[in-house]
């Protein structure tokens, strides 16, 4: 897949929403220009790159992490002070179901974990060669 075919697919799927289309085109061009490197983008960066509102970016991120055009993959990281732990999917699922996130190192619950867990986006299958 290349940038043009991805933008074409986006235009068809979001024909009724020009805001998502415009934001998506900017973001897709950026993602393909950076596809050789390792990506780690915060939601704030998606807003900046797509030059759109948080609401439009949210719809766009949901679409690009879905199965139709999987250019992004959403992951989560735990940030405590200046230390960062990338969370595995099973750790995030457990936290969502049980309301407790186990610290990857100490193996004990992280107090007020929701204040310390942040989403980020990395390359989805559609960007991996």
């Amino acid at each position, binding site marked *: 897949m290349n940038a043009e075919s991805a933008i074409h697919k986006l235009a068809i799927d979001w024909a009724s929403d020009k805001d998502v289309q415009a934001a998506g085109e900017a973001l897709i061009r950026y993602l393909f220009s*950076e596809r050789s*490197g*390792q990506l*780690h983008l915060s939601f704030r960066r998606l807003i900046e790159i797509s030059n759109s509102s948080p609401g439009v970016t949210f719809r766009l991120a949901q679409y690009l992490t879905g199965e139709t055009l999987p250019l992004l993959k959403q992951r989560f990281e735990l940030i405590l002070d200046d230390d960062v732990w*990338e969370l595995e999917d099973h750790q995030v699922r457990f936290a969502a179901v*049980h309301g407790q996130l*186990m610290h990857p190192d100490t*193996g*004990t*619950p992280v107090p007020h974990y929701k204040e310390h867990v942040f989403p980020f986006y990395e390359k989805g299958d559609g960007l991996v060669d």
Partner: protein
Amino acid sequence: MNTIALTEALQERGISFTLFSYAMKQNNLAPSQGWDLTIARITSELANPKSSAAYENGIKRIYSDLMYYGSKVVRFYISKDAAKVRALLDKHMVPDTQSFGKSFPLPLPGPQLRKSSVNPTCVFTQSLKSGSTYILCSRQFLIEREKLPDDSLEPQVVKDYGDFDEVIGIRKRWIQLFDVVLVNDKTGVIELRMDGYGRQSLADIEKRLEWLVSAVNAQLAGLGKAYQLKGSINFFPKIAELYDAADGRISELEHATDTAGIHKGKTRKKKADFREDSFHSAAASTAGTLHAYAVSKCWDSPTGVGYIDLKLPGTLRSMATTSTPVVDVACILNCASETDYSFVLSKLL
């Protein structure tokens, strides 16, 4: 040996839960989320006749592996005659039976630990064809700081002292560490593996290491000066080699430039390679020599489960000296098994 006591001792020793999970998976055991649920899971598997033997033997193996390997600060010496050194140490390293030796391989309970030695004391020796291994335990002081919930202060305290932006709790306690000395008379290598990485500062671990070197040298005094532990392997040249070798992933780098810059960089996840960071790679491709003085490199475990880390903790000061820079310790981290540890050694030596 009680399997649950061994597991709880690993938690008490501050072993990373992620590392313990990797060790369980490498031994085909199933971890759960966090220590409490994993201990509950192990308890239930021990009660099941179909899985009890696998869990009992597996946890015993993991406990031993995380004592010998795990995360260690290491130093290597090449001996003139390691067989002679081994023979003398075998004679002098008599396992203690009064203090640490009473509970080994478990750590001493708190009240007894407070009365034990702060200097490494031999608790176990093992003699194999290729060499001898000695495990030494010591009592070390630890100060832990933990951020407490904002509402943890009594209203009276707030009234007397005012509001605080952060409330920090401090715990002072004693912990038991397990250091390992190995003498390989086939290769002539004497290896000192120090415990406590991540709990003590590197400076404190190195102080204990120097004490241990002095203690071993005192025991070797009868053999003459040529047998003393001195002139350990210098890992400084390895820093540039590790950075340049395409395998693995650079996770941390500290380097200086000819234009008065000091750069410290790291990746935010172990799956990323700092060499591929756009900022670093653009600068590195045009700036010439890197002058790296500290590096951390990470590899996927050869077992297919987990990752392992090698850190060469050089300092800027070492670059400022007129003589050859020296980095005489390496941190071999996150080794869930002998396979992991041997893999890192193959990259280091």
